[in-house]
């Protein structure tokens, strides 16, 4: 057996070291959460928790955390369904037809990305308060939809644009009505992209913090706001469990869909 070149061995070791180093950087904050979530007692300055266990997991899954998870999930589902219903037809029209004021419409859905959200949402809260929608689920749904629509319009318009118009023309040409062609040709081809866009919208709503904190307080509690409250209240175990649960949908997506998601969708996820 030929001996490997010494340079190869060094290089392989360096590669491994690079992998370990990056893994450490990435997982350091995340693993701290895991340790804290299983900690029963940890007195400073001990390097390790004195007592580990599922105590807090059991405790929180019965209490407020579970309710926050429930209402946050419920809100995210409503936001996702409403956004899909409003966006799919609009995105299709924007991609295919000379919609009047098209550039202006697209700009309306672009600008919210270019400005800081918090000061705007502070004033939006006042408007919702005047409409008697503040501190209600409807108010939180509406404030989530601002961001959700912005993501959805752009990604879904891009999805429909990526389907060649000739595929639908071929169907019209054979006698299919526009509606029939939309459902037999455009929709099936757009489905993978629309699913990615839907997951993005769901994740955005599920993880949304700023708008929920401002509009939802004090009655509507979602997981991110609950986690924030417990974290700054030094209930570190509870906050860490909430943080881990918050990461589950995103990490599932990353592991399952990483291969299938185009990088432009991935980059959208980074803005949440």
């Amino acid at each position: 057996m030929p001996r490997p070149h010494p340079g190869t061995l060094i290089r392989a070791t360096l590669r491994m070291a690079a992998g370990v180093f990056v893994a450490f950087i990435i997982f350091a904050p995340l693993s701290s959460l895991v340790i804290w979530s299983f900690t029963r007692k940890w007195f400073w300055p001990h390097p390790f928790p004195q007592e580990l266990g599922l105590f807090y997991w059991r405790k929180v899954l019965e209490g407020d955390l579970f309710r926050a998870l429930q209402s946050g999930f419920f809100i995210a589902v409503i936001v996702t369904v409403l956004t899909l219903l409003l966006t799919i037809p609009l995105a299709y029209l924007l991609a295919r037809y000379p919609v009047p004021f098209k550039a202006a419409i697209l700009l309306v859905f672009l600008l919210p990305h270019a400005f800081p959200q918090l000061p705007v949402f502070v004033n939006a809260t006042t408007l919702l308060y005047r409409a008697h929608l503040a501190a209600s689920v409807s108010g939180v749904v509406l404030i989530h939809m601002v961001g959700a629509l912005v993501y959805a319009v752009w990604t879904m318009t891009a999805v429909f644009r990526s389907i060649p118009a000739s595929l639908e023309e071929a169907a019209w040409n054979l006698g299919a009505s526009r509606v029939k062609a939309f459902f037999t040709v455009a929709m099936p081809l757009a489905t993978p992209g629309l699913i990615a866009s839907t997951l993005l919208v769901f994740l955005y709503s599920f993880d949304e913090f700023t708008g929920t904190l401002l509009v939802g307080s004090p009655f509507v509690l979602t997981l991110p706001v609950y986690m924030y409250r417990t974290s700054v209240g030094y209930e570190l175990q509870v906050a860490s469990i909430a943080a881990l649960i918050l990461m589950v949908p995103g990490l599932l997506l990353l592991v399952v869909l990483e291969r299938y998601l185009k990088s432009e969708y991935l980059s959208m996820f980074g803005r949440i």
Partner: protein
Amino acid sequence: MTPRLLSLAVAAPPLAIVVWLFFLPFLSSAHLSFIRDGEWSLRNYALVWRLYKLDVLYTLGVSLLSLVLVIGIAALVCGYLRLVGHRVVEFLFKVPLFVPFVVVGHGMRVLLAPRGTLNSALAQVGLIDLGDPPSIAFTWAGIVIALVWKNLALAVLLVLGAYRAVDEAYLEAARNLGASTFRQIKDVLLPMAAPSLVVASAFMFTSMLASFSIPLMIGGGEPPQMLMVDVYYRINYQDDLGTANALGMVSYLFAMGVAGYYLRTITVRPV
């Protein structure tokens, strides 16, 4: 119904939501920033100047430092990933994309606090004295680390995409003339991907400037603070909409500056 009317009818409800809850509030914050005690005045801005000028500089400084670190690291790491390749590292860098900002804030808090897990670990190896633990969280460094950690994923994704779009032939030509990995990054990849880097930087700078949950959770209790935290405290603890909106206007101005720079760069770029 004519096609034009139909398409406007379809566009109306989502437009209404965005206009009602983004554009109107935006205008209202411009309006309220000039109102003090029910009258038009510039006193809100005077107050911003008196109390918050350091915070504005602090916000710009933290954002700029984070941006430089993110782009610098991404430019080098992506060069390595593009030229040599490392699937594990590439995957690892995508993880923060899917970790929400609030979770990053909390995770960094637990890790970097004086009594956090990092100090525990470092004390184990004898690097620090637990009697007087250093604090990274609750300082500018904590905010920078958290912002870099979260944004690096996005930067790697965008920059790597731009690097991958550079034709292999250009790199082969450089390699053929004896360019090292670093020289290939510096002389070929970086200049050719520059427009994409500008786009990524512009977007990330605004997002760092406007970051709220991370500085809220990991920033110190003492001034100076990041601008968004100031806005929130001004409303939550002092119920002072006028000054909060004046602070908001300052942040919009910076965002517009960035957008203007970005638009100029993409329109000036040769076709």
